[in-house]
């Protein structure tokens, strides 16, 4: 039951109603990061719907999503899977010390041409 409450919280954060999904799989047919993901966009939607959140929170797939919005664009039911993935990501990183990347890791990843956006897009997975 508790998980379902978390699921409803995720719906609130994402503004997405996962019950609108008709399980067509177009999001996963579209996803450019599919092969690197453990859980795929349609699974995010369905697992949030049924409250199986713990597995998602532990999965690297959260940070593999490229936020390219192709799934949002092509979904025939207006479900917005990317918003759901973002909501799970937020749930993961909002608690203290649950950051995906730590500030001290960043410098070694940088190169001098790297635009700020790349760092910010890494930072979005990070909360002070």
């Amino acid at each position: 039951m508790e998980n379902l409450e978390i699921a409803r919280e995720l719906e609130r954060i994402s503004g997405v109603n996962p019950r609108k999904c008709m399980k067509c799989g177009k999001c996963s047919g579209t996803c450019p990061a599919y092969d690197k993901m453990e859980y795929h966009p349609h699974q995010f939607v369905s697992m949030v719907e049924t409250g199986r959140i713990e597995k998602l929170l532990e999965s690297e797939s959260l940070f593999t999503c490229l936020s390219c919005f192709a799934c949002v664009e092509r979904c025939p039911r207006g479900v917005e899977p990317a918003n759901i993935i973002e909501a799970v990501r937020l749930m993961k990183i909002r608690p203290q010390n649950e950051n995906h990347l730590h500030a001290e890791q960043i410098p070694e990843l940088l190169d001098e041409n790297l635009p700020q956006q790349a760092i910010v897009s890494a930072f979005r997975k990070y909360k002070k």
Partner: protein
Amino acid sequence: MVYSYYPGCTLKTKAKDLDKGARRAAEALGIVMEELPEWQCCGGVYPMGKDEIATKLSSVRALVAAKEKKQDLLTLCSACHHVLKRVNNDMATNEDIRNKANAYMELEEPYAGETRVIHYLEMLRDVVGFDKLKEAVTNPLTGRKIGAYYGCLLLRPSKTLQFDNPENPTIIEDFIRAIGAEPVVYAYRNECCGGYVTLENKDLARSKVANIVESAKEGGAECLITACPLCMYNLSNNNAAGDLPVYYFTELLCEALGLDKEGN
């Protein structure tokens, strides 16, 4: 035509070429770009959470500043354009976000998405007009075969951005024609290059870049042009073959208008 101009952080540092070229070309085309004073970083990544308010405020400040000047807000960087346009849409359509942002900002007049956010390319298409641009070209890039790389952020989600057909866009191709070159239409021009994970998942980024580069080269493209500094970085640095140069579209615009890169 006078615009409020929002350059964004990257254009002041790593992507100076994008900014400089745009300013010089605008001058030549009779467009005035007034840089907003004291603009702040847009955040780089649009915060999708419906409860994210603070992360949207810097964009709202830029939008309000343009509203006060009664000007449209001109953008150049894809990421900034994406963030500003979507935050603007939230302010216009999401009552909760609007109320909270306005309550925090304590403006004299609450902001409700009145400013129009327009990308430099949209400005070229809708205000200058590609036919007029063609007339202004003094040094047409005849014979050059150029692939347009749109990426994600300019096009999607199309309901909010309303930039072009999200699956078969033509605006950059039309731009390429206007500067006298030949556009190469290839299927992956609107597929993601993997820029968001370029810092930590090089494999994924490289495989996405490879798809795009292969597809463009197959169509005969000699180079790619883009409006996004992150795509620029990713396409240049994560292309294993390293054989397809990438430019900002403003660089070629300047060349076609007979202006050199340093703007003389």
